[in-house]
């Protein structure tokens, strides 16, 4: 059951800087230094260069915003749930789910990644990335 839901986007092991938290799999432009998430190979959004390398991003950052979602039409996800925008310490901003047991959230607070059990399209259990207030 330690299979990941989206292994192209994150991994269980952390980075050297933040070893205990799952890392995000981003990219960095060799030409202009732009750091981005997720990794893509089409070309740098900032300068157009094709010199794009993988860059592991630490699973730590601070909360830019959060919202409790009360209504959701998409299948495979049941409201209510909470989403947040997190500025990673390594630069990029990500938007994703916040763990349900997070309690009240305040803009600016420290957040970190964690893996939580979810299900894939066929209903099989998989680990998916969430953010939680830093313990």
């Amino acid at each position, binding site marked *: 059951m330690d299979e990941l839901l*989206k292994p192209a*986007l994150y991994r269980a092991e952390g980075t050297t800087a933040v070893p205990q938290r799952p890392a995000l799999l981003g990219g960095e432009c060799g030409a202009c230094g732009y750091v981005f998430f*997720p990794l893509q190979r089409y070309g740098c959004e900032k300068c157009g260069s094709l010199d794009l390398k993988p860059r592991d991003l630490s699973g730590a950052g601070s909360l830019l915003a*959060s*919202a409790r*979602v009360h209504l959701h039409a998409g299948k495979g996800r049941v409201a209510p749930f909470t989403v947040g*925008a997190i500025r990673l310490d390594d630069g990029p901003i990500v*938007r994703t789910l916040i763990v349900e047991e997070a309690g009240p959230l305040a803009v600016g607070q420290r957040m970190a990644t964690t893996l939580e059990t979810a299900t894939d399209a066929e209903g099989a259990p998989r680990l998916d990335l969430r953010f939680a207030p830093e313990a």
Partner: protein
Amino acid sequence: MTTLKDLRPAYVAGIGFHRYQFISDTPYVELGLTAVRGALADAGLPWPAVESAYVAKALLPMAPGRPMLRHLGATGLPIVHVEDASASGSAAFRHAVMEVASGLADIVLVIGVDKPMPVGRAESLARIGGLADDAIAPFTHFALLADAYAARSGAKVEDIALVALKNHRNGAKNPFAQHQKERTLDEILNGKKIAGGFTSLQCTPVGEGAAAVIVASEEGLKRHGLGLDRAIRVAGSAGRSQRVYDDATRYDAMLTQETAAIALREAGLSPSDIDVAELHDAFTVEEVEYLEAMGFAPEGQAVPMLKEGAFDIGGRCAVSPSGGLISMGHPIGPTGVGQIGEITRQLRGEAGPRQQPGARHGLAHMVGVGAVCYVHLLSRD
């Protein structure tokens, strides 16, 4: 670089609408023809005078233009379909203006028409998925921005909801609006919860409709025995797409800021000159964000100004006098065209109970997913 200023003037000479409404059995052909016939009658022009047509739509299937326009008489005119998400109508208007200003045509139709239909977003085909894209619907994107705005400015949920109070009040006076009902702040705040501080009355409704405008040159109008007495000049037009911003989540506001600055510079106007503005207020927080981004309010001051009535009809600048996307509605293809129609009506002094007194300069603004942005400035000479 050549701008509109260097070309001959283009005017809005006619406007027409089919009411924005909840989804119905009315065929899109009837929605569109109602708006086109309205615009032709308003301009005093016969259909064969129209030399070229731009059809804005984002949801209807491929090529809806000729199956609709042939019922006015198949004159053989060129028809271009324009899709730019929420900004489709604004993009179509910009291209009609360029065709007239350049001298390639004298009388051009812009018609926006749409009906709600399930369509995907091409971005999802790029195979660069995020962590939980499916969890972040447009209302959730803006609910996150509202939370960040509140943290930044000190505004409360009920402060941001004042945008809905104003826009439903304006829409209640607009016979073409989807919502035509004044609401209390209580009703707005205690409605169905959507995401974050948003309730349903703070979000644009899903709907259908049509809006049309005729863009013309002075020569074209003269040829048909018409003058410029009710014509409104297009003073500026700018279109942009998203760049890389430091706060990537605030791309709508950043893009709005740079697009508005270009259009205002081209027209030789500043925000304080603008008497009436229609902007992309699909969700309440957008209006306060864009008012600050475009320079109608200093950073963090849009809410206090809103409370003072600065953006009411009769205030310093009437913002969304039509009711905006929140109350008039957002049928997608028509929306940007409808904004031009409302600004034209206001600058002509023909907006009746919604009239901004003495309106001379107006601004229309749309963003579309992608993201793209358009800003147009209209002036009464």
